[in-house]
C-alpha cells in the first residue's frame, strides 16, 4: 500500500518525470524530425538566434539546455532581440527562438528551414504539454528543480560528443541521460525519511515504523520507477520513432537497470550523509555532479585524460563516465568487455552505497533540527 503511494508521489512529481522521461522523448522526436531519412553529413545546421528573456519558464530552460544536443540541427547564437531581428531581416538566420514564459519562434515564412524550425518548436512545446502538462503547472517545485539541474544535460552531451559522433549514438546518449537523472529521484525520496530535511520526514520519524524498513521500501519503488521510465523512453524510440537498437536490446535494458539503479542510490547516499535541509542537499548534489562532469572531461577531454592518469580509480568510479561509457560501448563495440566490467562496477557501487545509506539512516536516531 505504501509502495503504491511511493510510486504515486514520485510519478506525480513532474520535474522528476520531465527529466527522466519527457526530456529524452522530446529530444528524440526533434532529432528524428530533423534527420528523418537523412544520414549524417548531408544536413547543414540551420542558423538561428536565441534570445533569452526575463522570467524563463521550465520549457524555455529545457530548450536552452537542449541546444548543444540540437547542434546538428541548428547552429544557434545567443543574441539580443534587436540584433536577432536584424539578422532575420537580412536572412542571415532562418529564425529566432524567444525563451521566456513560453517558447516562441519567429521565422520568415516559407522555406524548408522555417518549417523544420517550426516543427522543432512545436514538438518541444506540444510534447511537453501532453506529457504531463509540464508547462503551466505549479512553478515553484519545478523551478527549484530546474535550477538545481541546470548545466547537467549540456555537460553530459558535450562529454559524449567528444567521445563519439552524435548522430549514430544520439538515442543511446539520451537513454544514458535519462538514467543519470535518477540521482534526483534518490535525493527527493530520502528527503521524506529525515526529520531535518522535510516536515513529512519529521512526521515519519515520530511514527513507530523503523527508518530502515521505509528506506528499503523507497529503494525498491524508486528503482522500479527509474527502470520503467527508461523502458518507456526506449519503447517510444523503437515504436514511435522507429529506432533500431539491434540484437542488443536486452543488454540495453540491463544497462538501463544498472545505470538507473546506481544513479538513484548515489542520490540517496548523498542525501543520507550530508547535513541540512532539502534545498541545501540539492545544491550539494549539483556541486558533486559538476565535479563528476569536470573529471569526466566535460570542459575538455584532456581533464579526463589527466584524471585517468593521476587518479585512475576516480575515473573508474565516476558515475557519469560509467553510465555513458556503458551505453556507448553497446553502440560501438563488438565485444562486451566494457559493458560487463562497467555493469559489475555499477552493481558494486549500488550495493555498497545502499548498505551505507541504510546504515547511516538507521544509526542517526536523533534529528539535527
Amino acid at each position, binding site marked *: *500500500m*505504501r509502495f503504491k*503511494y511511493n510510486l*504515486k*508521489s*514520485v510519478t*506525480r*512529481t513532474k520535474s522528476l518525470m520531465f527529466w527522466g522521461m519527457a526530456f529524452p522523448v522530446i529530444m528524440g522526436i526533434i532529432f528524428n524530425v530533423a534527420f528523418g531519412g537523412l544520414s549524417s553529413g548531408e544536413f547543414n545546421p540551420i542558423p538561428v538566434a536565441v534570445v533569452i528573456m526575463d522570467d524563463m519558464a521550465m520549457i524555455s530552460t529545457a530548450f536552452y539546455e537542449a541546444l548543444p544536443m540540437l547542434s546538428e540541427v541548428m547552429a544557434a547564437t545567443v543574441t539580443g532581440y534587436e540584433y536577432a531581428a536584424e539578422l532575420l531581416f537580412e536572412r542571415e538566420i532562418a529564425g529566432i527562438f524567444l525563451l521566456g514564459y513560453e517558447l516562441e519562434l519567429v521565422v520568415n515564412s516559407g522555406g524548408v528551414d522555417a518549417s523544420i524550425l517550426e516543427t522543432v518548436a512545436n514538438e518541444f512545446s506540444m510534447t511537453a504539454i501532453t506529457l504531463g502538462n509540464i508547462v503551466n503547472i*505549479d512553478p515553484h*517545485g519545478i523551478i527549484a528543480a530546474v535550477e538545481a539541474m541546470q548545466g547537467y544535460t549540456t555537460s553530459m552531451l558535450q562529454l559524449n560528443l567528444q567521445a563519439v559522433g552524435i548522430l549514430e549514438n544520439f538515442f543511446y546518449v539520451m537513454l544514458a541521460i535519462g538514467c543519470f537523472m535518477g540521482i534526483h529521484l534518490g535525493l527527493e525520496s530520502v528527503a*521524506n525519511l529525515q*526529520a531535518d530535511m*522535510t*516536515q*513529512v520526514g*519529521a*512526521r*515519519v*520519524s*515520530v*511514527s*513507530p*515504523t*523503523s527508518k530502515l524498513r521505509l528506506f528499503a521500501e523507497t529503494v525498491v519503488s524508486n528503482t522500479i520507477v527509474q527502470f520503467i521510465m527508461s523502458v518507456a523512453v526506449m519503447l517510444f524510440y523503437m515504436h514511435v520513432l522507429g529506432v533500431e537498437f539491434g540484437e542488443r536490446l536486452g543488454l540495453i535494458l540491463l544497462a538501463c537497470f544498472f545505470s538507473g539503479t546506481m544513479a538513484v542510490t548515489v542520490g540517496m547516499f548523498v542525501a543520507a550523509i550530508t547535513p541540512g535541509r532539502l534545498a541545501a542537499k540539492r545544491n550539494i548534489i549539483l556541486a558533486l555532479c559538476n565535479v563528476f562532469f569536470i573529471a569526466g572531461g566535460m570542459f575538455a577531454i584532456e581533464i579526463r585524460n589527466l584524471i585517468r592518469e593521476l587518479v585512475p580509480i576516480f575515473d573508474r568510479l565516476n558515475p557519469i563516465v560509467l553510465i555513458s561509457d556503458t551505453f556507448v560501448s553497446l553502440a560501438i563495440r563488438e565485444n562486451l568487455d566494457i559493458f560487463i566490467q562497467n555493469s559489475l562496477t555499477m552493481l558494486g557501487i549500488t550495493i555498497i552505497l545502499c548498505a551505507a545509506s541504510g546504515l547511516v539512516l538507521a544509526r542517526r*536516531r*536523533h*534529528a539535527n*533540527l
Partner: protein
Amino acid sequence: MLVKIDNLVKRYKDVLAVDHFSMEIREGEILGLLGPNGSGKTTTINCLLSLLKYDKGDITIFGQQMSPTRYDIKKDIGVVMQNVAVFDELTAYENVDYFCSLYIKDAATRKKYVEEALKFVAIEEHAKKVPPKLSGGLLRRLNIACGIAHKPKLIIFDEPTVAIDPQSRDYILEGIQNLNKNGATIIYTSHYMEEVEQLCSRIIIMDKGKALAQGTKDELKRMIKTGETIKMQVLDISQAQLDGLKELKHVFAVDYVGEDLTIRLTQGKHNLARVLEYLNNENITYGRVASELPTLNDVFLEITGKGLRD
C-alpha cells in the same frame, strides 16, 4: 502519570532553548503549554518525542523511558506539528492513509480509521483533492487528520490554529475537546491565551525555556495579586481623590490616563460597591463601569513582567 519531563535542558549552540524544565501530565487532561514566540514550546515537544537529542533531563511516557526506537510507546502517540506535513502529490485521503499505515497494519481497520479521521475534521468532500488545492484552514485540518487517525492515547498539538480563520479555529478547538472526551490525553501549545483558557484543564506558563507557573486557570489567577480590575470613564478627578481611592480596602493600584480610570484590587468582597460609594461621596461623575476578573494575560503580565502577545 502519563508523561513526565524532569529537569530537561536543551541547548542549540549558544541558545539555551529549554532551561531545567519539568512537567507532568495526568491521564485524561488537556494540558496547555502557554508561552510567547521563542519560549521553547516546540523544542520541548521535539525532545519529548525523541526527535531531538537533549543535554540533560529525563523523559518518561506511559511510565517508560522514551527513546527514538521505543516503537511500543510511539504507536500510542499522535502528533500534529506546528508546520503542515503532508505529501503534495497525494490526495487528502491518500495522505491520511499513508501516515496511518505507519501505525496500523490491518487494511480494513485502517480504512475505517482513515474515513473516521476525515469525517472528524470534516474534509470528506475534499478527500480526493491534493494539498495544494486546499485552502489554509482545510490544509490545517488535513494536517490534524494525519496526526490523529490511528487513535492515539496521547496527542500533541503544536499551535494547530496559527494563521487560520476563526471558523476553522473554533472547529479545531471543538474537535480537540471531543478527542479528549473520547479518552485521549492532550498536550496543547499556543501563545493565544483565550484558546488555552477555553480548552485546557491545566496550564503551564513557559518563558525563556523555563516553567514559570502551573495549575488550573483558577489556581493561576489566584497566584497573582490582581483579583479584580475595575474600569470606568471619569471626566474629572483630582490627585487627592486618586490618592483617596488608593487608600480604600483591597486597592493596590490606580491609573488615570485620558479619561480612563483603572483600579486594580486584590480579591475581596464588595470591592465595586466600596469604590462607587467613594466616588458618590466625592461627587465625581462616572460612566461605563466595568469590573473584570483577571485573565491569563494578567497572570502572564505579573509573572514575566511583559505581555503575552508579541
